[in-house]
């Protein structure tokens, strides 16, 4: 028996979620008194995972796996799981992780707990805590099958530094043509922009900003903070901002360290998408805006006055730190 972690990389570089998943896997292996196997696909520096407790790294270098392909990746994980006798598989919750996990679970006839936020509270029965009802509640789920798949909610478990010495192995997976029936035609990524999924800080604007011409200050604020920009649903619906920026229940999920909401009322559907963020700041003219109830820090004031001041203060702060 062992624990298997999928450590996701993008263009050869690990994502932070890879370190989080490895940290989780390492702690789980300790809890289960078993060993940890971490799998990487075309990562430039697999050794980096040593910092998070990866004792055995299987590094796969294969051109066929350059583009993410859920079926092929799932097959590789399955081959390694069988070779390593792994029955708990840990994945992250990125677009790719959330695509891969149910496929792996289906192939291994495994129970799957997505959105998991903590180590099992009991290993027999195997019980994990996960987020449900759009972050409005937690569900303690018992996984009953021998094989288990766990998806870690971003920024929920955290990255745990734990330097070890790893053995690094390669592996030549069997890759049949029928794994590649879905073909990637092209990948379109906004370059030079921090994506909401990857950002530690997200600056978000709502209808209170009155029009698209007023987003300059939002972008400036995001710029000083190294943040991604986001918006409420009506703002995207009115085409003030691109659809990729729409966050909330029907849009993207934000699990950032800091979420700054400017001119957003805090409707339940908006909060459902951003609740998982650690610290929330609200700037709104209306002291009764529901967002204040969900926030950690609030300023009642006009965004057109407060935001430029905030930018100015942050610039000063950055210059000193």
């Amino acid at each position, binding site marked *: 028996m062992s624990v298997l972690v999928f450590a996701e990389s*993008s263009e050869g570089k690990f994502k932070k979620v890879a370190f989080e998943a490895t940290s989780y896997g390492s702690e789980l292996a300790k809890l289960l008194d078993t060993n940890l196997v971490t799998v990487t696909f075309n990562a430039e520096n697999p050794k980096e995972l040593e910092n998070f407790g990866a004792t055995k790294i299987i590094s796969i270098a294969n051109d066929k796996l350059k583009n993410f392909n859920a079926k092929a990746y799932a097959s590789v994980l399955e081959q390694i799981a069988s070779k390593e006798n792994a029955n708990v598989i840990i994945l992250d919750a990125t*677009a*790719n992780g*959330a*695509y891969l996990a*149910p*496929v792996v*679970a*289906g192939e291994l006839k495994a*129970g*799957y*707990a*997505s*959105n998991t936020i903590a180590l099992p509270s009991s290993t027999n029965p195997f*019980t994990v805590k996960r987020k*449900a*009802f759009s972050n*409005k*509640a937690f*569900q*303690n*789920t018992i*996984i*009953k*099958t021998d094989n288990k798949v766990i998806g870690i909610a971003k920024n929920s478990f955290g990255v745990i530094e734990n330097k070890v010495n790893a053995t690094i192995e390669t592996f030549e997976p069997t890759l049949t043509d029928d794994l590649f*029936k*879905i*073909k990637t*035609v092209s*990948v*379109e*990524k*906004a370059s030079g*922009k921090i*994506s*909401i999924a990857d950002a*530690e800080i997200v600056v978000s604007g709502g209808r209170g900003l009155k029009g698209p011409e007023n987003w300059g200050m939002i972008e400036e604020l995001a710029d000083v*903070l190294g943040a991604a920009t986001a918006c409420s649903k009506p703002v995207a*619906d009115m085409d003030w901002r691109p*659809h*990729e920026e729409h966050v909330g*229940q029907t849009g993207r999920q934000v699990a950032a360290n*800091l979420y700054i909401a400017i001119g957003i009322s805090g409707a339940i*559907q908006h909060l*459902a998408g951003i609740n998982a963020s650690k*610290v929330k*700041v*609200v700037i709104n003219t209306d002291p009764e805006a529901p967002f*204040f109830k*969900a926030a950690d*820090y*609030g*300023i*009642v004031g*006009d965004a057109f006055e*407060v935001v430029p001041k*905030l930018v100015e*203060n*942050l610039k000063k*702060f950055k210059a000193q730190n």
Partner: protein
Amino acid sequence: MKILVCISHVPDTTSKINFTDGDTKFDTTGVQYVINPLDEYCLTRAMWFKEKQGASVTVVTVGEANVEPTLRKCLAIGADDAIRVNSPAYDGFYTAKQLEKVVKDGAYDLVLAGRESFDYNGQMVPGMLASFLDYNFVNACIQIDVDGNKATLAREIDGGKEILDADLPLVIGGQKGIVEEKDLRIPNMRGIMMARKKPLKVVEPIEASPATEVANFEKPAPKSVCKMIDADNVAELVELLHNEAKVI
């Protein structure tokens, strides 16, 4: 093209989330149920295929009799017929097993499901279903066009999108983008009248075991009150974010 749209019947997004029976069951008191919003996007796209490409559209739910109004609403929106698998949806694995049977029996070649349902947020039924069926699968799908048995799709990736080609049969985990909000349809009187006459078939579940089970639910700890900062003292916010919250 035979389309199956998988419908999950979920509490309206503004519902109060409470639990009963020692926090082991979701409290349905006063809860309004709706079509899972992502499934509604899928159904709307299916209607487009029906009208423009002559596809047939069946909706299916694994659930007890109380889900029937949701299926009737789908029929009123325009689906041709509905199937209810007469069983509680014990978990995603069990649900996918039931749906596998429905897909095989009906020989559907395009299965549209939502990326996730807004109750348990399982994010698993479409992927597991595709894997059981050995159908192609595209998750977080934001665009789908079909020509013959060739589909062109887009899926959302972190920071952008990816364009994909896949042949039918195909399962997707769909979300906003495959249609826009403005394309959603409110059933009209005629649709509602017609829906009453459309077939809603009840089938018995197959033998299958769920892979997971709910131990109990918990509500998040009440949040501490929001710290208010004077609009004339923005510097204090910066200071707090640095020293107290430690996020900058």
